[in-house]
Each structure stands twice: as structure tokens, then as C-alpha cells.
């Protein structure tokens, strides 16, 4: 009896620092060649995929017998990346059987992500799968495992709020803008300075439908370059205050020692705007905008900590939703394991069927003498009768073996008994005698605890 097992070996953002992860991470182009070498290096591995993102490097595989020692796989990865395996062996995690399936599903559903519920991981997992398909290392079990992981992720997204709430500064900016303004289509954003996060926030607002974008920077050339990139208009820094009255949203990330906009100036601007609301996002450290501005009517000032608090609250919300998602992953894992266990029955069923079929043909041949004397119609009837008997018998065996209520070890034990009862082949018999039901049952015990 073969004992095929899924396994996962890898490191992620929780077990390994970025210094380790960046060494291990595979460039896209290196994945397919690495996979095509994995089978000759590790003969026990029959199917394999390699997941490599900035937060995790994992080998997902199927072992024909006992899975290879995690260190052997780590060694393989280390050789492929040209580093010493000792660097990260303490950061490795290893899952096999049901735990490995559950891990793969959790990764796909974004429950194992640094930001729980972030949507990119599913795409990255799909990429890993397509690499494995290209390398020819995705067999029937991995095909199914990945497809079920994608389906589980979809289900989690539909049934829970795990992907909701702003968890990044730029999505918080868009969410807050949506609570102040009815539509962004007639709004203008002013980007002051070109910090990374500020630029991301401006891009997000643009994607959310912002009508026009003004860019100012202390170096005018930078403003022009950024404006061109974001399809906005550059404004000279010396005149930015006179343009502020046009801006409904301001994103500031200037490197300045003290605020460039005072509350009194802002009051004048809001009057000029006839009290149309303004949303000011101050990402500068030290802050670019006077904090008393928030006290002005119809002006909403959020600094980097305020946005951080907004994202932290959404994160908490996601954690709560993640519990619902875990339950979905559990039941999807169960369904996959049932399928995998059914796969284990296939060889036994084949044996039993061929054994009974041989019995039928033997008996027909033994009685060839008198059967041959029968008229043609009678002879086909006798043959049909034997075939009918075999099918009826096989049907009962199949129904009994595929019992939905039985767990994997019970099914395998029943398959073993059935094979012993129905197969006369002495060669098979010796192999079967080595099989004890407890052995396969032990896999399932941890999950039942």
C-alpha cells in the first residue's frame, strides 16, 4: 500500500527575518528550472510547487513514501539559491498530511499573511501553481490541492469580512475620503512633497476616481516629473498656498522642520472655498500641517498616527473575521482529505476487481467443455450471468468501502480486509500482511484533538 503524503516546508515572515527571506526568495525565472531539478535531487518527491513571495518561501510537495527530512528540502533550496542551509534551518516549519493541506488553504485564504486578508497572496499562489504546471511537477494531487485552495479562498472572501476595512495608509485615505465626499469625480487632490506613502495614497485616490491632481515639491523639477507620472499638474512651491483653495484633498509629506500651513491660513482658505470640506492628510515627520487645523469646521486633518489608528482598528476587525474564515478552511481541508483518502482506495479496488474477474474467467474456462456444447444464445446468457454476478459483488464492495461515515483509517482497514478475503494472489498477500490499521490511523489523530 502506498502512503502518499502532502508536505510543506518553508519559512515565512513570522519564523524568519527579512534578511533571511530575501536570500531565500526565488526570482520568478529561477522557479521552473529549480522545480525541474527537484525530482532528481529528492527521489521521494513525486510532485512539487514552489511558493516564493516577499513574506514566504515554501516547497509544497507530495512524497511517495515517508516525506524527505525537512533539512533535505532546505538543503535543496539552499543549493538552488547558493547559500548555506545553516542560515535558516532554525526558521523552518514543516507540515505533513492534513496539517500541510490546512496550511496551504490558510495561505490561499490570506489567513497566514502579515496583513490578514490582504488580497495579493492568492495571485501569488496562482503563479506558484502555474510555475509547477510549467515545470511538469504538478501531478493529480497538487492540481487538486491548489484548485481547492483557490476555491477555499474564494469562499472565505464571500462569507467573511476578512478583506474589509482599510489596512494600509492609502486605503485608509480612500475610505476616509469616501466618508467625507459623496463622489471623488469632481474633486482635486494636491500632493505636497513626494514621499513613498504619499505617492501611493495619491495613486489610490486617482484610481478611486479623483478628477484632477496638483503636485508641488520644493524642487520644481521633481514636481514636474511626478506630475507627469501621475497625470497631474505641477505647481511651483512658492505659490502652493494660493492653489490650496482648489484642493479638496491634500496629501503632505514634505521634509520641513516645522508646519508650512498654519490654522489661521487654513481658516482663510476654507472661507474662500465657501466652507466646502477639505480632507488633509499629513504624512510628514515632523508634521507639515498645524495640528490645530483639525478644529476648523469642515476641515478634517489626519496625521500618520491617526491613519495608523484607523488601520489598526480595521486590523482588529479582520482578526475577528479571521476566526470565521478558519472554520471554513477546516471544513474545506476535511473535504480535500476525504478525496485524498478515496484516492488511496483506488489500488485496492483495482486489485479486487481484477482478482474477481480472473476468478470468473477461470471458472468459465474450467467449464468450457459443456458450455461449448450449448447453442450460441445460451452460451452468451451464461456469460452474461457470470458478469452480472461479478458486477453485483463489486458494487457491494465499493459501496461498503466508500462509506461516507467511515474515517480514513477505517476505510483503509476495510479495503485491506476486503482484499484479503477476495484476492487469492499469494504475492499480494505477503505485502498485505505487513499492513496494520493503526499505522495509517495515526495520521488523523492530531487533527481530532
Amino acid at each position, binding site marked *: 500500500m502506498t502512503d502518499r503524503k502532502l508536505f510543506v516546508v518553508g519559512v515565512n515572515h513570522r519564523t524568519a527575518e527579512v534578511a533571511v527571506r530575501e536570500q531565500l526568495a526565488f526570482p520568478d525565472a529561477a522557479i521552473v528550472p529549480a522545480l525541474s531539478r527537484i525530482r532528481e535531487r529528492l527521489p521521494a518527491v513525486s510532485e512539487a510547487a514552489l511558493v516564493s513571495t516577499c513574506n514566504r518561501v515554501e516547497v509544497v510537495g507530495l512524497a511517495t513514501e515517508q516525506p524527505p527530512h525537512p533539512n533535505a528540502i532546505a538543503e535543496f533550496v539552499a543549493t538552488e539559491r547558493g547559500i548555506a542551509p545553516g542560515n535558516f534551518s532554525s526558521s523552518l516549519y514543516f507540515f505533513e498530511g492534513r496539517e500541510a493541506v490546512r496550511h496551504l488553504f490558510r495561505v490561499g485564504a490570506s489567513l497566514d499573511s502579515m496583513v490578514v486578508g490582504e488580497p495579493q497572496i492568492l495571485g501569488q499562489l496562482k503563479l506558484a501553481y502555474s510555475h509547477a504546471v510549467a515545470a511538469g511537477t504538478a501531478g493529480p494531487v497538487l492540481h487538486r490541492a491548489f484548485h481547492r485552495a483557490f476555491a477555499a479562498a474564494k469562499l472565505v472572501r464571500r462569507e467573511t469580512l476578512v478583506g474589509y476595512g482599510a489596512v494600509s495608509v492609502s486605503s485608509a485615505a480612500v475610505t476616509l475620503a469616501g466618508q467625507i465626499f459623496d463622489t471623488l469625480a469632481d474633486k482635486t487632490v494636491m500632493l505636497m512633497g513626494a514621499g513613498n506613502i504619499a505617492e501611493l495614497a495619491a495613486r489610490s485616490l486617482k484610481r478611486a476616481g479623483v478628477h484632477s491632481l496638483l503636485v508641488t515639491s520644493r524642487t520644481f523639477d521633481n514636481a514636474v516629473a511626478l506630475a507627469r507620472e501621475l497625470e497631474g499638474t505641477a505647481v511651483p512651491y512658492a505659490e502652493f498656498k494660493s492653489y490650496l483653495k482648489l484642493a479638496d484633498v491634500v496629501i503632505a509629506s514634505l521634509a520641513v522642520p516645522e508646519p508650512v500651513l498654519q490654522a489661521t491660513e487654513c481658516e482663510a482658505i476654507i472661507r474662500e472655498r465657501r*466652507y466646502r470640506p477639505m480632507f488633509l492628510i499629513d504624512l510628514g515627520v515632523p508634521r507639515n500641517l498645524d495640528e490645530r487645523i483639525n478644529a476648523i469646521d469642515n476641515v478634517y486633518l489626519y496625521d500618520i498616527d491617526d491613519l495608523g489608528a484607523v488601520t489598526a482598528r480595521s486590523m482588529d476587525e479582520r482578526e475577528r473575521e479571521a476566526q470565521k474564515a478558519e472554520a471554513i478552511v477546516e471544513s474545506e481541508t476535511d473535504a480535500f482529505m476525504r478525496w485524498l483518502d478515496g484516492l488511496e482506495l483506488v489500488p485496492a479496488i483495482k486489485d479486487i476487481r481484477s482478482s474477481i474477474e480472473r476468478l470468473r474467467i477461470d471458472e468459465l474456462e474450467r467449464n468450457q467443455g459443456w458450455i461449448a456444447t450449448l447453442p450460441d444464445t445460451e452460451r452468451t446468457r451464461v456469460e452474461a450471468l457470470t458478469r452480472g454476478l461479478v458486477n453485483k459483488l463489486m458494487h457491494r464492495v465499493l459501496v461498503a468501502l466508500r462509506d461516507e461515515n467511515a474515517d480514513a483509517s477505517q476505510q483503509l482497514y476495510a479495503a485491506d480486509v476486503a482484499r484479503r478475503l477476495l484476492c487469492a494472489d499469494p504475492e499480494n498477500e505477503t505485502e498485505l500482511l505487513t499492513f496494520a490499521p493503526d499505522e495509517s490511523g495515526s495520521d488523523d489523530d492530531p487533527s481530532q484533538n
Partner: protein
Amino acid sequence: MNPIWMIPAIVGYFVAALGYTTSRLGLAPSGARWGKFALAGGVAAHILVLAVTALQAGNIPVTNLPESISFLSALTALAALPLINRLRLIVIGAFIAPFAFIATTIAALTMPGQRLQMPDALRSAWLPVHVTLAFAGFALFVLAAGVSLVYLINERRLKTKRLTAPTDERMPSLEKLDRINYRLLGMGFLMLSLAIVTGAIWADATWGRFWSWEPQESWSLVVWLMYAALLESRLTVGWRGRRVAALTLVVFTVLISSFVGVSLVTPGKHGGSFG
């Protein structure tokens, strides 16, 4: 008419209030969906009762305070329906449904068994026009006050930065609330102006003078001037947002206390004694 006939409307409003508040509090996300049907059902039942009463009495049933309150809550709930369904201002249901429930219940409980006799002088075609305009204006001001309250709550949350649970993301934006408030105030003001004009024409035809400075008239004028000032500040200075929402609530408080106060304390023609 026996107030027992108001029970279906009251039940409808109660179920709607339950649906909208539970959905607002995040207890039953589908609450707003059945709340909508309950509110529409309550309005239909309420208008049916009012129509039957009007047919029996031969005119609009607003001869005393309970009848007026009942008429007002029916109009308010009716006007809230397009706000909820067309403008997707679902959150207003959490204010209007409880308002309609409480107001209609109070009206039913305090309804006198005997209707006031309507003198012949008042049996005029002007009565339904004048009264409906006045109460429609009143209903729109109730809605404006509800919208302003939502505005102030949301504005507070944005200012103090206590927000962004997933339920908040589905809340109407401040800009939208402000715009709807402005429109409601504008329409309410128009109704109130027309009510005052029709009332004056009718008074002139019946008593020979446009204006007699009785309490309801004076207070209506005060309220009319206050709403006029509110709208004017928006048109000329451009006031909007929190200040307008707060002032809407202030003027509404004056409106509702003058309405109740005049009816209870100083009855004139509007209070039910038609001399």
C-alpha cells in the same frame, strides 16, 4: 374614529424601528431590508385610516393635537420612503421609524373619543390645502432634523477619529447628508411659505383680514424667518456642514415647541377653538 384602527400602522412603525435600529447596531444586517417593507406597510395603513376619517368628518382630521401629531407622523414616514429607497439614505430609517412609532402611539393614546365640531366657517376648500401644505413643510423639517442629527454624529466621529469599522464604510458621506439637508430645508421652506400665504388668503375670505397675530401665526412667522435666515446664510456666505446641521436642529426645536406649546397653552383657531 376609534383609535384602535391605528394599531396596524403602529405595528408597522414598530417593526420598522426594530429593523432599522438592529441593522444600525450591526445586530441584524438584513434588518434594514424588512424595515423598509414594514415602514411602507405602516404608512399605507396609516393613510388609509386618515382617509377614512377624513371622509367621515368631511375634512382633514387635524382638529386637535393628537390628530395633528398622527397626520404629521404619517406625512413624515411617507416622505422618508423616497429618501431611503431613491437616495439610499438607509440610516435615516433608524430615526424616522422610531419617531413615527412613538408619535403615532402617543396620538392614539391621547385621542379624544369625541371629535371637535368644525364650525361652518372652516368648512372650506382652503382647509385641506392650507393644512396639508403646513404639515408637509413640518414633515420635511422633521426629516431635515433627522438628517442633521446623522450629520452631526458622523462628523463627530470623523473629527475625533473614532471610526472605520466595516459598518461605517456603508454610511452616507457628509457631503451627501449636507446636500440632502439643504434640499429638505428648501422644500420645507417652500411648503411653509405657501401654507402661510394660503392661510392668509383663507383668513381674509372668512374673517375679512389676512393676519390676526394669534399665537400660531406669530410663531409660524418666527420659524419662517429663522429658516429663511438659515437658507440665506448658505446661499450668500456659503455656510454648510456642522454649523448648518446644528442650526437646523435649533430651529426645529423652536418649531416643535411652538407647535406643541401653542396647542396646549394658548388655543386660538389653530389650537382647536374656532371663534
